[in-house]
């Protein structure tokens, strides 16, 4: 999984060194890393829906790896933007964050990923308690929405691709809601049954 996840980075680095990123290599690297971060994010958010829909459990086991790769890629994406595209200009960066919603949304998403990456260890789960940890990590849903909107707003005219990712994300959310609703129903039915027996 980790080895596979490193392949796109190797491919990008190889093409960058071989001058094969086209006429605007900075833009190509920026777009590619952004898209890759989104793919990692959507993949990590699809683990639970896959379990609900198909009963697969193996995706949940690689979820943390996917999430950490998402953070790493998003950080690279940001660094290419800040270091190469804006040439370390803090003024240009702050103006962008202030004036341009798609950049402020993207940056917010990156900031929200920081606590998630920091608390990704098993020890954090025990330290925070499972409930609190789980609530904190539900931030990933918000990051998913922010990332897709960030992509949607950046595209000039052809919105097919961001909408596709939005659809996958939305479908996953839908499955979660249905599953939660079914679980609640079951709990109530069981409670009712118990009440019936004792009454």
């Amino acid at each position, binding site marked *: 999984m980790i*080895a*596979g*996840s490193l*392949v796109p980075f190797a491919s990008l680095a190889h093409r960058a060194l071989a001058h094969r990123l086209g006429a*605007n290599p900075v833009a190509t690297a920026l777009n590619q890393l952004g898209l890759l971060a989104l793919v990692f994010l959507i993949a990590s958010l699809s683990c639970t829906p896959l379990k609900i829909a198909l009963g697969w459990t193996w995706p949940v086991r690689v979820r943390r790896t996917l999430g950490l790769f998402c953070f790493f890629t998003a950080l690279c994406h940001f660094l290419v933007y800040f270091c190469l*595209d804006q040439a370390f200009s803090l003024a*240009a960066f702050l103006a962008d964050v202030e004036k341009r919603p798609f950049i402020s949304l993207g940056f917010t998403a990156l900031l929200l990923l920081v606590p998630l990456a920091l608390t990704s260890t098993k020890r954090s789960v025990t330290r925070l308690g499972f409930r609190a940890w789980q609530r904190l990590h539900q931030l990933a849903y918000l990051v998913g929405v922010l990332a897709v909107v960030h992509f949607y707003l950046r595209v000039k005219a052809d919105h097919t*691709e961001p909408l596709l990712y939005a659809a996958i994300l939305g479908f996953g959310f839908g499955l979660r809601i249905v599953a939660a609703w079914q679980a609640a129903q079951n709990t109530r039915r069981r409670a009712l049954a118990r009440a019936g027996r004792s009454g």
Partner: protein
Amino acid sequence: MAEPPKPSEITTAEHYARRREFIRSGALFLATSAAVGAGLTELSELGSADPPVKPPPMPKPAPGAAPWEISRRGRYTVPEQRTSYEDVTTYNNYYELGTSKSEPARLGFRIKTRPWTLQVTGELETPLTLDIDTLIRWFGLEERVYRMRCVEAWSMVIPWLGFPLADLIARCKPTSRAKYVAFTTLLDPEQLPNQESRVLSWPYVEGLRIDEAAHPLTFMALGLYGSPLPGQNGAPLRLVVPWKYGFKGGKSLVQMRFVENEPETTWNRAAPDEYGFYANVNPLVDHPRWSQASERRIGELARRKTLPFNGYQDEVASLYQGMDLRRFF
């Protein structure tokens, strides 16, 4: 006789027993990493990212076409280095051929450039249908090196080949009611396959005020780097307005219409708050989603400051005297 193996070289019983497991997990590792790696690489290189494409060979003039000779050069040039032929012909915005930068270079060959005519209609004495080779015979081919600034904040320096639009306008004899000129791109999904999509409304229409159209810098290009335009650059005939953002330069033009009112133009219709009718290069007026204060010259890593009117201020600023360029952006 072979020496007996050293004890350290003998596989332990435990490892021997686990060899199948080892092979299986090794195979699983290879398969997973190959699948994951290929999938991720493929996905991240899709759409917005641009796989590299080979530049086309320099097109040759069509058989039977007008003589392809440069009749004049050196009148207009810029002191900066020219962008390479490869970059000029592989990094294009031509949405009718695809919305990525590389797709147009792959599909440009589909545009059939002969026979080709330009219709001139609207407010002029007599409507005209002009063959492209007639245009070359009438006006000759002049080389002009212009800066090209895309609204997406990148730029190039391109040696175009063509004639001033003013020469053609003079031949057309527009009436006094002609206040604007509208330029229409070819509409044919056979040649321009992405016209099947609804990304923009087709055909692509751009427009200029008549005084902008007749300005000596406004150019009708038929070639670049001394040879005919490749499809992705707008073959066989395109508009070049060097002090405006690149999208004002309609490609593969089939019609020119003299009109009394400001024509509806494609990008302006699609997103009026992002793409104005005038679209003069202006570092002070940002695109809502990015700054226009600087640009990346293709082939350079550091950004350059964007110049007012793309560096053609002395020539064209007078066209807009008294106009609020923040409002008419």
